[in-house]
């Protein structure tokens, strides 16, 4: 017996072993495959959003009417401006990230430090903006009345502008007490009471001749259907059941509750990704500062975290389109 070496006939070929056929390190490749799976998770959410939207295609909320707020510009109707700013911040922080990766290729510790720092700042601005956006969305602005079948009645004046319920409802002191755990049925309680009862809204509506109701249904111009005065009163009196202010997982003054659910879930999941990206960036930032990669003579770690960070930006591009534009 001479020896036990087996020749496979693949020596020297790309996949013959002892090489990196994809020319990428293990860590980088695994980051790519993680990104693929995470992309599928996000597309699962977005496709589910699309499912619900197609299901309610003729009564879906109009994004331009939902996201109209910009910080420090109170009361102005500025659709999409703020979210465009957020998009720009995230793209910008992607740019500083890729500049950090580039500086890493040149083993330039000082530049990597600066660009990583700017990336973290960009991420923090984005997460802060998102928190503000959530807060505005949860608080709501005008309020609406939900009907028995779960549809929504919103109020507009003669010029077609939205009117806030608190501006016309006539408060009568009905003293409807909030149900607490300690009285009545044991261990059941209800959330905070809506600011007005339907009766108060009806009274206020009857007293204000120029207010009309619009339903969720979209007409052929893609706008919400406006009811006549008589029809408005009839709808409100016979179907109105609950005054809704703001949005949460159960009710939503902007339209279908499932719209709010998806908004919280998808932007929340994305925001969580941004947050974990910031944490990773901070860890890498300190590693850069103490010179770990300087000694290693390779800044590939920055590159891997960079991949994740760009992916977060990539997802936002889609969330932006499907929530705010389409």
């Amino acid at each position, binding site marked *: 017996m001479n020896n036990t070496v087996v020749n496979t006939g693949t020596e020297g070929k790309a996949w013959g072993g002892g090489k990196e056929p994809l020319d990428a390190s293990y860590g980088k490749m695994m980051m790519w495959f993680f990104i693929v799976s995470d992309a599928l998770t996000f597309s699962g959410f977005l496709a589910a959003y699309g499912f619900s939207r197609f299901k309610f295609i003729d009564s879906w909320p109009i994004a331009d009417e939902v996201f109209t707020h910009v910080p420090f510009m109170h009361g102005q109707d500025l659709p999409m401006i703020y979210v465009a700013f957020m998009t720009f911040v995230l793209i910008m922080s992607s740019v500083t990230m890729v500049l950090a990766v580039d500086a890493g290729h040149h083993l330039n510790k000082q530049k990597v430090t600066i660009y990583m720092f700017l990336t973290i700042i960009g991420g923090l601005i984005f997460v802060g903006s998102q928190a503000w956006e959530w807060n505005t969305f949860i608080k709501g602005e005008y309020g609406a009345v939900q009907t028995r*079948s779960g549809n929504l009645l919103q109020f507009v004046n003669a010029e077609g502008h939205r009117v806030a319920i608190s501006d016309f409802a006539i408060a009568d002191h009905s003293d409807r007490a909030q149900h607490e755990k300690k009285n009545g049925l044991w261990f059941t309680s209800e959330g905070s009471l809506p600011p007005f009862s339907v009766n108060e809204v009806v009274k206020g509506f009857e007293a204000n001749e120029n207010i009309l109701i619009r339903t969720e249904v979209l007409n052929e111009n893609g706008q919400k259907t406006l009811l006549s005065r008589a029809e408005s009163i009839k709808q409100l009196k016979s179907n109105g059941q609950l005054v809704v202010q703001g949005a949460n997982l159960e009710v939503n003054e902007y339209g279908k509750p499932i719209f709010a659910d998806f908004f919280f879930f998808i932007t929340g999941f994305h925001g969580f990704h941004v947050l974990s990206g910031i944490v990773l960036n901070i860890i890498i930032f300190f590693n850069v500062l103490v010179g770990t990669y300087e000694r290693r003579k390779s800044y590939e770690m920055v590159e891997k975290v960079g991949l994740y960070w760009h992916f977060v930006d990539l997802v936002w591009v889609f969330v932006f389109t499907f929530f705010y534009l389409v």
Partner: protein
Amino acid sequence: MAHAQKLEIFRGTLKFKSNTDKIWGVLILLSVITAIEVVLGIYKPDILMGHIAGMKVLNWIFIILTIVKAYYITWDFMHMRDEKAGLRNAVVWTAIFLISYLSFVLLTEGGYIESVYSSGYITHDF
């Protein structure tokens, strides 16, 4: 890290001098696309309100522009342009195939349920 970076975009019609220049070039491109989207989204020109294949022309434009943006983020920021074809195909085509399939199935189903609602056998407004 060691491999050379390709510095041209638009199939070679625009070639940058350095990687840093290319990054800024791509940033400008992405910003312009976002600006176009925002302007179209605010003004919603009437010409683009027609329907093609069940969706508004404007929405098709938004989706196509988004995919263009995604392409440049992946190719230039994530350096997919510089990876080997094997890695690139494994990542990109897997995702494209599965995402298209999932969207097709769910959107078709959503459309079907909508048709059940609107054809009148079930009322969801009582």
